[in-house]
C-alpha cells in the first residue's frame, strides 16, 4: 500500500460511500423514484447501476437522489469511478465501504456493502476480519481522542515524491 495513489482511491470510496449512505438513510422521508414510471434517462441510469452491482433493485441512495436526474447521473459517475477496479480491487473497496458504513452507523450502507463483499467473494472469515478491524480501531480512536493524544506515527510512512497525475 505504498504510494499516494491508493490512498486517493480509498478516500474517494470513503467519501462517496458516506454520501450515498446519507441519501439512502433519508429514503423514508424523501421517497424513492420508481423505475417503472421514471423518465427514460433515469431508466437508462438505473439500468447502468443495476448492471454494475448485478442487482435487481437499484440501491436506495440512487433511487433517492434520482428526483434530479442530472444530479444523480453525476453522483453515479463519481461512484462508479470510485468503486471500479483501479489500483485497489473492487473487493477491497467494498470492504472499506462496509467499514465506513459500520463506523458511521448507516443501516443501509452496512447491509448493502456486506452484500457486495459477499457477492465479490469475501467469506465469513473475511467479513469478521473487517468487522474486527473496524471495532478495534473504533476503540483506539476513542481512547486517543479521550486522552487528546497528538499524532506521533505519521512519519513512519514513506513520502511519495511522484507528481500529480497529468
Amino acid at each position, binding site marked *: 500500500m505504498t504510494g499516494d495513489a491508493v490512498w486517493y482511491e480509498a478516500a474517494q470510496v470513503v467519501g462517496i460511500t458516506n454520501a450515498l449512505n446519507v441519501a439512502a438513510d433519508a429514503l423514508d422521508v424523501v421517497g424513492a423514484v420508481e423505475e417503472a414510471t421514471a423518465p427514460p434517462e433515469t431508466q437508462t441510469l438505473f439500468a447502468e447501476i443495476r448492471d454494475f452491482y448485478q442487482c435487481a433493485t437499484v440501491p436506495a441512495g440512487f433511487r433517492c437522489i434520482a428526483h434530479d436526474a442530472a444530479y444523480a447521473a453525476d453522483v453515479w459517475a463519481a461512484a462508479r469511478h470510485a468503486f471500479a477496479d483501479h489500483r485497489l480491487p473492487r473487493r477491497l473497496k467494498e470492504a472499506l465501504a462496509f467499514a465506513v458504513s459500520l463506523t458511521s452507523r448507516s443501516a443501509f450502507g452496512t447491509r448493502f456493502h456486506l452484500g457486495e463483499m459477499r457477492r465479490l467473494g469475501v467469506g465469513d472469515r473475511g467479513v469478521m476480519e473487517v468487522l474486527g478491524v473496524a471495532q478495534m480501531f473504533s476503540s483506539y480512536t476513542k481512547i486517543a*481522542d479521550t486522552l487528546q493524544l497528538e499524532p506521533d506515527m505519521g512519519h513512519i510512512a514513506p513520502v511519495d515524491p511522484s507528481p500529480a497525475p497529468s
Partner: protein
Amino acid sequence: MPTVRLRAAVEYPPSAQKAFELSSAWFNHAFEVPPAMSRVMAWDPGFGSPHGRAMKRATAPGEFTRAEKEMVAAVVSGVNACEY
C-alpha cells in the same frame, strides 16, 4: 495537549519495555520513543494486553492482507475524525 501526562518509557516496568519492543517489531520501525498509544495501553496491562492481542488478531493476515486491513483501519479512523 494530552489530558494526561504521558509517561516516558523508562518510567514503565520491564514487562512494559517488552511490550514496547513488540510494538516496534509489529510496525517494523525503530521508534526513538514508544508511540503515545503504546504507552497508554501499557498503563494498565489488565486492559492493554487483551486489547492489544485483539487488535493483533484483527489485523493479522487472513482473507485480507495486513496492508489491506491497515487501510480499513485508516478509513475507520477517518470516519471517527481521529487525528491521532
